[in-house]
């Protein structure tokens, strides 16, 4: 163990020994590579940390921030209400109020005490058996009842049933009920318009719900607003042209008429002569929009707009107006209506009350078929067709109301002579009551035609001249003579007011043939005559009483409607006649 050469320098551990640190045994010989490896490892660890930091900071920042936000931010749903519908005077016709839908987790609800469930069924106004049937389901979410009003919800909340919850929604209320429903329409549970103006104006009425992000504190109070993620938009309110008072008058008149004349249905329309606004649109039978559980198609039908019928004699003034306008006749031109019979293309056309000679005015007053056929023979079919087209017959009107009927007017080239003759007194073509009433605007105004509107308009629309003011005035005089004891519409007289109009009776087409027992009686009138304010159209479908003609069923309905409507809007009387003379056997128009 002895070493030959002692170490020099270095610490000496013992005087006689070698320096401790110099001991070759203890001398650690580290290989050079180890320190280098260590250095690299350390460096790599730092690099990994750096990369990780870079990754968190640079690459996945968004994800992490989102995760962070979701831990303290809340998103609130912001509901939007559907716009209200109002009449022209601001009376509410349809409005949405918040209600709640009651839903359940069946398993949890069924576990609660039976007496609570009985009470719940009572509050929801449904038989308990039915409610249990709904709960007997594998699903974890079951609607028990939708559109439950808030006061009921408050009572349900007090029961504290486990697994029962509510969801906010809106319910539409229609305070005017069945009177206004054909105008306003209604919405589904999902707030989507189904009929009438609710359907037509769905886009502007509907509200768009939004949402906003907030930070809430421990007490659930919102402490900071982080802005909208989507701004809510309430639906726009809609002001209709309809006048609640006139609508009620029209509805009552038509309802009474349908009951009195034992008719299948009836419809009435009141138009504002100056603005083309629809002031009233009534149908009977009708329905209550607040309770639609027993709704039938017959009740839903809007006969003014979607139903077409053959207008009958109502169209005669159009033929006469065209003849006057083209100077082919004057009001005093005399026609030989002979024995009240004329044969065209092998078909006989008859008058029910033959008069040997009639002037143009007389033809309208007595509603002579023969006379009007004779006038129509002076007019080429093409001109007649052009007038019908200008008046909007045969085209679906576009006034922003759903489902308008176009009616039917065949192209003039295909008219056979007998068909043309029939058309002159309103057979062989079909129109809706709306189209018919609108065409009478040319007489009520000074020969021009304006578009109709179902929403309130502020200024008078520009008209399109169709006949001259002179012709319009001449036809107005004739229409007034119809509503006199000598005319076919003696029952349309209104005490205190001068009114004018024309009756129409058409046989209904049953199984492709003209029926001898089913008729449509109609009347379109203008009131008051001195300064026209309203065009009023009335239609009574299939009256089954002693009278069935337009003069018999529709004219008195018009009189009733017009009298009340004129009084309701404070139109000063323009006639001193307050006693109405109706002949014992009033003149009826021919079929």
């Amino acid at each position: 163990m002895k070493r030959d050469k002692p170490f020099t320098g270095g610490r000496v551990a013992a005087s006689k020994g070698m320096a401790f640190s110099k001991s070759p045994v203890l001398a650690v010989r580290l290989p050079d590579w180890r320190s280098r490896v260590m250095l690299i490892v350390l460096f790599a660890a730092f690099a990994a940390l750096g990369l990780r930091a870079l990754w968190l900071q640079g690459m996945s920042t968004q994800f992490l921030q989102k995760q962070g936000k979701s831990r303290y931010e809340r998103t609130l749903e912001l509901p939007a209400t559907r716009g209200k519908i109002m009449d022209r005077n601001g009376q509410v016709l349809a409005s949405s109020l918040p209600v709640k839908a009651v839903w359940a987790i069946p398993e949890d609800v069924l576990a609660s005490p039976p007496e609570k469930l009985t009470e719940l069924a009572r509050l929801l106004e449904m038989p308990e058996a039915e409610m249990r049937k709904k709960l007997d389901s594998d699903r974890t979410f079951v609607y028990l009842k939708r559109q439950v009003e808030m006061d009921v919800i408050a009572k349900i909340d007090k029961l504290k049933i486990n697994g029962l919850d509510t969801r906010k929604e809106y319910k539409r209320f229609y305070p005017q009920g069945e009177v206004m429903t054909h105008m306003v329409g209604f919405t589904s549970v999902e707030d989507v318009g189904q009929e009438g103006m609710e359907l037509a104006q769905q886009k502007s009425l509907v509200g768009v719900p939004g949402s906003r992000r907030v930070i809430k504190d421990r007490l659930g109070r919102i402490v900071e607003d982080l802005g909208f993620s989507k701004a809510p938009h309430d639906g726009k309110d809609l002001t209709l042209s309809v006048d609640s008072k006139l609508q009620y008058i029209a509805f009552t008149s038509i309802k009474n008429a349908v009951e009195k004349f034992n008719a299948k249905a009836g419809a009435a329309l009141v138009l504002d002569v100056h603005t083309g606004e629809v002031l009233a649109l009534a149908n009977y039978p009708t329905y209550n929009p607040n309770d639609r559980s027993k709704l039938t198609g017959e009740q839903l039908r809007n006969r003014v707009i979607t139903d077409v019928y053959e207008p009958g004699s109502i169209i005669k003034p159009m033929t006469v107006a065209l003849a006057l306008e083209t100077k082919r006749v004057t009001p005093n031109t005399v026609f030989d209506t002979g024995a009240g019979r004329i044969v065209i293309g092998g078909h006989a056309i008859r008058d029910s009350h033959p008069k040997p000679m009639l002037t143009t005015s007389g033809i309208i007053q007595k509603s002579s078929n023969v006379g009007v056929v004779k006038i129509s023979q002076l007019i080429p079919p093409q001109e007649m067709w052009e007038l019908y087209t200008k008046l909007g017959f045969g085209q679906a009107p576009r006034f922003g109301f759903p489902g308008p009927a176009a009616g039917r007017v065949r192209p003039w080239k295909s008219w056979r002579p007998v068909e043309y003759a029939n058309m002159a007194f309103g057979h062989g073509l079909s129109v809706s009551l709306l189209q018919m009433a609108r065409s009478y605007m040319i007489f009520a105004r000074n020969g021009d035609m304006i578009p109709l509107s179902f929403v309130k308009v502020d200024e008078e629309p520009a008209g399109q001249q169709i006949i001259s003011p002179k012709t319009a005035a001449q036809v107005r005089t004739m229409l007034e003579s119809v509503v006199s004891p000598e005319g076919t519409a003696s029952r349309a007289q209104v005490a205190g007011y001068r009114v004018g109009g024309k009756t129409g009776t058409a046989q209904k087409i049953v199984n492709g043939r003209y029926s001898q027992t089913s008729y449509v009686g109609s009347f379109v009138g203008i009131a008051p005559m001195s300064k026209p304010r309203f065009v009023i159209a009335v239609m009574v479908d299939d009256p089954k009483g002693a009278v069935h003609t337009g003069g018999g069923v529709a004219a008195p309905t018009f009189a009733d409607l017009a009298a009340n409507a004129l009084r309701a809007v404070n139109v000063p009387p323009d006639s001193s006649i307050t006693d109405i003379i109706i002949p014992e056997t009033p003149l009826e128009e021919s079929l």
Partner: protein
Amino acid sequence: MSNKLNIVLAAGLIACGLTLVNARYQARHLFIELERLQQTSRQLDIDWAQLQLDQSTLGKNERIEQIARTNLNMTPLTPARTQYLTTGGAR
């Protein structure tokens, strides 16, 4: 000299910090108040809609006519028993 400046600056900093805390506190309170009032406003809107609806329901022409006829014994007006007065007096 620089010591004094540091003290003044530190005091200023603390004061700023405290006012910030206070401002935040105030802001939150005002915000909560705003929220509460907005909630009230929404509720009032709903009440308004409800009242309009009630008005329309109670002011229904049908109901008015019914009450006028049965409770008040009123009858419809006829021109036969109406006296019309023209403006400008009797002529």
